[in-house]
């Protein structure tokens, strides 16, 4: 009796887990968004002089690593890999600006990042509208 | 007095109020024709382990026989030595002179004293 209950509980829970590729994509996008937003805030606060250089650099690098980790297995949505590539390029430029202590140099990639963030948001919304 | 409630698992303190373990077990003497007599209090990790499961006490004894003070026998305190039973069970002994503190003394002499600030 106990075994049957436990087995059915597992089945129910398994059914609730996001195993569909659609859900996985949404989750991936959300994580990428979160780290993009983090990088943006890091860039902005660094520009204002509110955070130390080393922390800014390390956090930007961590953002890149997390996004790379998250998008490693992405096969859906053909537009995405290119967007991610562009995103990583922008982050790389920001990291370089921080490494060289050139506050002026981060302005352009920051604007670019804002645009890329918008694109991600649109993509996420499109996923949300799907059944 | 409820022996299980008021004595078993209570703290034992010596005549100087020094803690010397808990009452891990009680040894009762059975003599034919007479009511059971409380003979000894027992304190020791093997006694305690035995209450959890008899096999436990064999493992514990095996580990204890190889480590530290290498002391496995539980310490028995005669009931006549019990002075008072209140919050703690006070016994008319000096803890340092008994094997109840075998590991405490071993750790103190062999480990703690060798660490700066430990002596």
């Amino acid at each position: 009796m106990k075994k049957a209950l436990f087995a059915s509980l597992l089945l129910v829970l398994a059914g609730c887990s996001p195993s569909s590729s659609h859900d996985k994509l949404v989750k991936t996008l959300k994580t990428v968004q979160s780290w993009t937003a983090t990088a943006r805030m890091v860039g902005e606060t660094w520009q204002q002089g509110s955070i130390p250089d080393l922390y800014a650099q390390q956090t930007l690098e961590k953002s890149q690593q997390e996004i790379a980790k998250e998008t490693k297995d992405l096969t859906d949505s053909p537009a995405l890999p290119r967007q991610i590539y562009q995103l990583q390029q922008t982050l790389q430029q920001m990291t370089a600006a921080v490494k060289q202590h050139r506050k002026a140099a981060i302005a352009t990639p920051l604007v670019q990042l804002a645009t890329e963030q918008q694109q991600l948001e649109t993509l996420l919304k499109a996923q949300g509208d799907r059944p | 007095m409820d022996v299980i409630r008021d004595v078993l698992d209570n703290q034992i303190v010596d005549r100087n109020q020094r803690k010397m373990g808990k009452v891990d077990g009680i040894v009762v003497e059975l003599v034919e024709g007479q009511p059971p007599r409380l003979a000894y209090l027992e304190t020791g990790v093997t006694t305690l382990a035995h209450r959890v499961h008899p096999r436990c006490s064999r493992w514990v004894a095996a580990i204890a026989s190889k480590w530290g003070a290498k002391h496995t026998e539980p310490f028995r305190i005669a009931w006549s030595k019990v002075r008072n039973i209140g919050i703690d069970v006070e016994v008319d002994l000096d803890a340092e002179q008994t094997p109840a503190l075998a590991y405490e003394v071993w750790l103190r002499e062999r480990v703690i004293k060798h660490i700066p600030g430990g002596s």
Partner: protein
Amino acid sequence: MNKIREIALGIVTSIGGFLDVGAIATAAEAGSSFEFQLIWTIVLGTICVIALVEMSGRLSAVSKHTLADAVRERLGFNFFIFPLIAEVIVDFLVLGAEIGGVCIALQLVTGISFQWWALPVAFAIWLLLWKGTFGLIENGISFLGLITLAFVVATFKLRPALPAVAGGLLPTIPQQDTAHYLFIAVSILGALISPYLFYFYSAGAVEDKWDRSHLGVNRAVAGLGMGFGSLVSLGVLIVAAQVLHPRGIQVDSYEQVALMLTQPFGYWGFVLFAASLGVACFGAALEVSLDTAYILAQAFGWNWGETLHPKEAARFSFVYTVFVFLASLLMVVGIDPLQLTLFSMALTAVILPLTIIPFLVLMNDRSYVGDHCNGWISNTITIFTIVLTFVLAIVAIPLEVLGG
């Protein structure tokens, strides 16, 4: 006059010592992911912990026993061995997380990876335990912990919309991310209602030689101290909700949390966050290490006491020495501090019922608390806490594990 001073000191140290790595991590997660929706969890957890801490104090003041002593005596070793083993395991993981918190604070400021800081931090903790007195640890570090009031100040500076905040007082369950929401709720409860708090508080009452005349002090410290302390926790949540949530940052790592105070305070905000994290976690690490030594010493009847010289309590001192260094290894090998924190908080919630059930027995037993038995309110809160944590843990943890 002396009692007033004791109350004041107790309240101040409770506020300063309220935050630890679990409270910070879970509140930040809650605020960044769900804005104000989880405020009710912090309020609920605070009510539960106030009641349970007051009970621990009352038990020790009247019976002159610590909680661990009393549980073994009244319920027997065969019962006590379960919460004992559970508590030692959880303490180990929580201590690792607290050490991690201090190491992250040092990493934020120096850029040197937290893994390198683990052993030096463990050494500092050990040194303070070895050389310090109970008074120094309880009061000194908690006074430093008042720096965490920065979160309360930040809350006022950020001017959150009061209706939205008040809305968070009502329990709601969102349609999206339900599993994650419930998991954070469970973790918040585990962070706030930590068993090590009760064992530590009751041991402290005995170390400070409390008696029946301290029952008023106990109520004041538990109620006001924990109550005001929870405002700091709420502060962390609200700041995360105001700063991180609107930007779309969902906390996955401590680096993201560090940005929280830069909006209200600029560069000083970054420093204040690192200092708050470091001090709060250091203080908690001292308490958790002591807690493990306390419960093992009290379980087996060894000599114990922080104010005792190590050679007077050899087994007690040996336990915390080994424990601190072993727990620091969790950080040395590079286990993610935030993940360890959330995991240990959830695990705490799972073992809570085991720790709290003895309260129901002890606090209604006249031979332990005399005329000061639990009223119906205390008993109700106790039963409620047991049922709530049990149900949430059973439901939320498998969902998160399978879904995450």
